[in-house]
């Protein structure tokens, strides 16, 4: 174990996988010599060279296209899209090709790509540098979406993603890049499609992801002071998400709050809320409550952004409400 930031943990995972398997290579804008906009690939260029640490032009479609094509002939590309907001530009490549290659050719080809990208708001990045974009892909069969919230999981999930044979969007929250945590040495895997119970509790289940998992834990701490015992679940894989762990928890606590940094209309939070209400209908003591971003783009002003993004207090209030109204 050693203490490191999520950036370091991700770097460690990439380094390990590139050392182990020469089919693994990285491509993206400024990921080579510079080491990436957030430093995740720092040092790898010196170690693995320009062939395996490929600087690309600003061509997101070509980045994903090249990743998918090379994966179809046996490579294991790790592509970086600098900010997740830019995935709009290569959306077709992800949705109509990467996600469908395996199915439409009935299993002949596969597209084991990992697309790393920095997501999320809270730093005044404005409307095109702050979005959570899992909602863009939730309704897309064939796609897998992974989003770590701790350095330990970041390393384990990235290794698992590179080894997995499906196309994976790997979302790294900017607010968590420099947050430190204990990370095991050596190679290990954090399983995909398996949520993490970040905190056990008995009165209400809070389902969250990435940054919001942290806010939810803080909220749970406060709730404990009011004798509300909250169980916090960090989804880790957002599509397909771990229904079993969530439903088991809700059947125990009989109350659920779903927290998401994305807008409340459509998207992940709606899916989680719907599945809970559909599958655990008889067990629920109160309606599921969602705590999400407001239905707006993300404003530049940090003050305004704070208003539209969900906060700790919003989670606390929601948990209190489901607890008291039942």
């Amino acid at each position, binding site marked *: 174990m050693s203490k490191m930031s999520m950036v370091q943990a991700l770097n460690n995972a990439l380094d390990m996988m590139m050392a182990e398997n020469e089919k693994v*290579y990285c491509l993206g804008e400024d990921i080579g010599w510079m080491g990436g906009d957030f430093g995740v690939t720092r040092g790898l260029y010196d170690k693995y060279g320009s*062939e395996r640490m490929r600087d*690309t*032009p600003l*061509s997101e*479609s*070509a980045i*994903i*296209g*090249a*990743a*998918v*094509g*090379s*994966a*179809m*002939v*046996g*490579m294991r*590309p790790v592509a970086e899209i600098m900010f997740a907001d830019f995935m709009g530009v290569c959306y*077709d*490549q992800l949705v*109509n*090709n990467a996600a469908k290659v*395996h*199915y*439409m*050719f*009935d*299993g*002949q*080809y*596969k597209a*084991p790509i990992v697309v790393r990208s920095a997501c999320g708001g809270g730093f005044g990045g404005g409307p095109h540098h702050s979005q959570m974009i899992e909602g863009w892909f939730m309704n897309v*069969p*064939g796609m*897998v979406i992974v989003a770590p919230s701790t350095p330990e999981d970041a390393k384990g999930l990235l290794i698992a993603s590179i080894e*997995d*044979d*499906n196309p994976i969007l790997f979302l790294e929250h900017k607010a968590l890049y420099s947050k430190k945590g204990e990370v095991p040495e050596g190679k290990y895997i954090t399983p995909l*499609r398996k949520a993490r119970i970040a905190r056990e509790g008995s009165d209400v289940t809070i389902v969250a992801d990435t940054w919001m998992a942290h806010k939810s834990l803080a909220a749970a701490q406060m709730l404990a002071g009011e004798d509300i015992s909250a169980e916090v679940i960090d989804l880790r894989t957002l599509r397909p998400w771990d229904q079993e762990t969530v439903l088991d928890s809700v059947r125990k606590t009989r109350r659920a709050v779903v927290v998401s940094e994305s807008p409340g209309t459509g998207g992940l939070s709606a899916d989680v809320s719907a599945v809970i209400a559909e599958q655990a209908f008889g067990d629920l003591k109160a309606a599921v409550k969602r705590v999400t971003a407001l239905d707006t783009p993300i404003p530049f002003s940090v003050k305004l952004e704070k208003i539209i993004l969900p906060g700790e207090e919003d989670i606390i209030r929601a948990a209190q409400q489901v607890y008291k109204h039942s």
Partner: protein
Amino acid sequence: MMDISSELYLKMYCDMLHVRKFEQALEREFKLGNVPGMLHTGIGQEATMVAVAHSLRTTDGLFPDHRSHGLLFLKGTPGERIMAELFGKATGVCSGKGGSLHSADKSVNNFGDNAVEGSFMVTALGVGLGWQMQGSDALVAVMLGDGTAGEGAWHESLNLAAAWKLPVLYCCVNNGYAISTPVGKSHATGDLYKFAAAYDMPSVQVDGNDLLAAYEATQKAVEHIRAGKGPYFIEYMTWRWQGLFMGEFREKEEVRYWKEEHEPIKLAGEDMVQKGIATIELLKKIENEVQEEIERWVTFAKQSPDPDPLKATTNVYIGWEVETR
């Protein structure tokens, strides 16, 4: 003009006929309701397809487009499996899940069409890159229509292929129209090779209905790429017979020129007869044999079973199954 053996010439002629007869049979079956979905045929473009097919090795990659049915079997896949795919049958090369617009065959490095026009131009970069990194001398050919040159992926693909000297052969099939839209109307120029020339790669225009000229140009391109010199762009000038769903929309004289005067199969046949490589009787015999073979493929497709219902939900993800109803 290139010198090729009589044997090869005859083989290519025979292949052009395969393409022609395949498409004609398909049109017939489509009208009878046996072929689902949409239909785009490559009639009129046979010389271009055969020139490309004969320049590629099995180990080379191919991204066929929506008019490339002929290329699908010319690349090496048994024709009946292509026909069956277009009929949506279990015996099809993708078990009926891909159809006309998505018929891939990994065993011959056919990467399948992507019905979002232009999109696979960037996928091809990856195939070329992967092989380049693996030290292979294989190249990847991409078929693309003149209309497809409007897509942004065009630029990203040409630019990166040139910057990274990737082994990509761009086969631009300029048949004059994108559906109803004339190439010169929708683009800054109707001579598309001029676009590609800006990307620091050789870019040429060739008569796509002149089999030998098209073949020669393609051979030259393949040599260039195989030597590690990077991508190459060829614009094949040709014409598609297929009109619009409401019928023929082009000028009478234009139609006559392309269907009667500058028709690739007729041109090659006449040339062979003139050169003494074949007699009219031999050509007729070949045609009959091809026709019979194509009908066998149709029969195979027709008699093949529908896909197993289980196929509907298999191969979405690798490693787990999606829920059924």
